[in-house]
């Protein structure tokens, strides 16, 4: 004889399995989840292959440059691509919007391009959602649909009184319902686990991070199931419970995650792209023109260099003055770029911190934060890539400027060439994405846990209310 809790859970699952509507909804969600996982894995593989091909092509073009003046090489530039981890297929995070490739060249700091949302096929923009989207946005709807009548419908049918007459306490009834619907919620993790296994391949780190996605999504889904049971127990009619839960879904899944970034933007406003570029251009103008060896902005630098070499004219320098100006100009421009980049990234981090705060009220934000961090597609990952790309750009440009300084004579500067072996020997861009910043993820984990514990703590109270209700 199973315990009453188990009997109720088994009965609930049997009831669900006999409801065509429930079966259709659950089947559709599972199918969508599986299809999105497989499609996302395929798209990610295609994207990785495309990035590898483009990276190889960029390197081929870089290496195919003939003997030429190093400054022409600086302007030739090259592309670098953000390496995306295997779990990006599960949750593309902000990379879908920020882009994952940068064009590196002298005197300029370009922003990332080729965001999936802007560049990819119609399929990605309007077709199948990602597994993360299905679990974050659609799966709660399914759980609400399955559980909104779990208690209220018993009340409406009159079977609640029958159960009470069999001596079933309210808390036992709710525990049984929670066990059944919690089981359904956790069953939705199976396609996710499969997708993680397929995405991670044999990569231990990705597997470990993917494994941590399961409790995060599990907590989210369980919170919805328990919340739906709670609403069903507290509200008199199933229809009231459904409307309340749909309202909660709209608020927590649709509205709050869109309002919170607006609030973050209002609290930490970022200039428009045009304004930001104008601000950088204004600061660059103060540096001077590094292409002009006679630019008066480089007067103090000229005096310093002449004094250093003990000469009075740049003609007497043992190195190429034009190259030195180009190098100093890049140094000063690099400082401008870094200053603006640091400010922009600090602003982005402040906005992200605001979202972290908002996650206590909007748990979808907490889940997204965790999911993106574990997938390696969050803001810190993108910022690290942008910083690494800037460091690589600066090192590359200054190495070419050094060639200009030492390998090119001042006379007839622009007509000279250096051997292509110099850029063939330059290191390619390698960027190891940083792992998740675990301490920074604690607030998001805490917020998610709070939203799980809240209905869990309220269920016994609802059980006592059911007991009182039966007596009324």
């Amino acid at each position: 004889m199973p315990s009453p809790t188990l009997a109720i859970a088994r009965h609930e699952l049997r009831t669900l399995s006999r409801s065509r509507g429930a079966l259709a909804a659950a089947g559709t969600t599972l199918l969508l989840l599986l299809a999105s996982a497989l499609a996302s894995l395929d798209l990610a593989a295609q994207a990785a292959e495309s990035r590898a091909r483009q990276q190889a092509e960029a390197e081929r073009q870089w290496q195919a440059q003939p003997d030429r003046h190093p400054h022409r090489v600086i302007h030739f530039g090259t592309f670098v691509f953000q390496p995306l981890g295997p779990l990006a297929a599960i949750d593309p995070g902000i990379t879908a919007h920020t882009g994952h490739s940068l064009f590196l060249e002298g005197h300029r700091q370009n922003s990332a391009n080729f965001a999936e949302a802007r560049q990819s096929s119609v399929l990605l923009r309007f077709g199948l959602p990602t597994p993360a989207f299905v679990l974050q946005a659609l799966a709660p709807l399914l759980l609400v649909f399955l559980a909104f009548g779990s208690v209220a419908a018993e009340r409406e049918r009159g079977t609640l009184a029958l159960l009470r007459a069999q001596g079933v306490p309210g808390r036992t009834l709710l525990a049984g319902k929670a066990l059944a619907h919690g089981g359904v919620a956790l069953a939705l993790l199976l396609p996710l686990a499969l997708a993680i296994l397929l995405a991670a391949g044999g990569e231990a780190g990705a597997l470990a991070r993917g494994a941590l996605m399961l409790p995060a999504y599990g907590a989210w889904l369980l919170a919805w199931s328990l919340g739906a049971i709670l609403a069903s127990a507290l509200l008199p009619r199933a229809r009231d419970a459904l409307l309340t839960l749909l309202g909660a879904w709209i608020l927590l899944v649709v509205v709050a995650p869109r309002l919170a970034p607006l609030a973050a933007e209002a609290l930490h406003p970022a200039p428009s792209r045009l304004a930001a570029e104008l601000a950088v251009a204004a600061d660059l103008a103060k540096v001077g023109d590094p292409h002009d060896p006679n630019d008066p902005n480089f007067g103090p630098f000229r005096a310093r260099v002449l004094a250093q070499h003990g000469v009075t004219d740049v003609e007497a320098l043992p190195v190429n003055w034009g190259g030195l100006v180009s190098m100093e100009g890049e140094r000063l421009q690099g400082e401008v770029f870094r200053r603006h980049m640091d400010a922009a990234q600090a602003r982005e981090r402040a906005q992200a911190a605001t979202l972290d705060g908002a996650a206590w009220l909007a748990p979808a934000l907490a889940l997204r934060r965790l999911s993106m961090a574990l997938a390696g597609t969050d803001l810190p990952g993108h910022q690290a890539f942008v910083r690494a790309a800037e460091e690589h750009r600066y090192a590359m440009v200054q190495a070419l400027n050094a060639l200009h300084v030492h390998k090119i004579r001042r006379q007839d500067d622009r007509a000279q060439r250096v051997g292509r072996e110099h850029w063939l020997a330059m290191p390619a861009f390698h960027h190891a994405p940083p792992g998740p910043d675990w301490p920074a993820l604690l607030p998001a984990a805490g917020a998610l846990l709070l939203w799980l514990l809240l209905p869990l703590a309220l269920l016994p109270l609802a059980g006592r209310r059911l007991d009182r209700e039966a007596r009324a």
Partner: protein
Amino acid sequence: MTLAHLTDVHLRLGGRPVLRGLSLEVRRGEVLALLGGNGAGKSTTLQLLLGFLAPDSGSVRVTGLDPRREPAAVRARLAYVPENAALYGQLTARENLSYLLSLAGADPRPGAVEDALRRAGLPAEAWDRRLSTFSKGMAQKVAIALALARDVPLLLLDEPTSGLDPGATAEFNALLGTLRDAGVGILMVTHDLAGAAAVADRVGLLRDGRLAEEFRAGPGPRFDLNRLHAGFSAPARPGEAA
């Protein structure tokens, strides 16, 4: 042996007096039909025995136990069949019984469910059909089968023949007679005067929150239906329990 015993029970609900000194008892092997108009306190009486409500004063006992103090023990000794036999339409008769028995903590012997369904008069071909396809009379039999399977001494019935056709009512009454003969005490609350007269050993008229009159079945015509009807139709005193 007295199975259910209410002594001078007073109860107000929502500030309104519902029971005003109700006293009654149900003994082993008898059917007590409690008649009364809407709001007379018939279902309230059942809720007191189930322990869902506590009296403001007076005493409620089921097999000598206080339902408020020992609800689990009391519910193990009685079976309750609510009005309209609210059961699970998507489950079969057999599944309904198995599920509700497991919740009641009963551990029936193998075949007890089928035996109860048979004794309740449900044909075997209906045992594995979903209740959503049952008539009200058939569903009522399943509810009674639940009580049989639990093998409890006291049966509480709330408007058991409401909505049943005459044939189903007659079958149901015959079933109650069988249960009574097996020693089960039955308290049924009903509007159905004729139905009550057909099966009850005693008929109590609940009026003004108390047992206004009680009739005992006699030999030959069991009850004087005219007297019953006159008692049933007597108006409640204004301002008192409806």
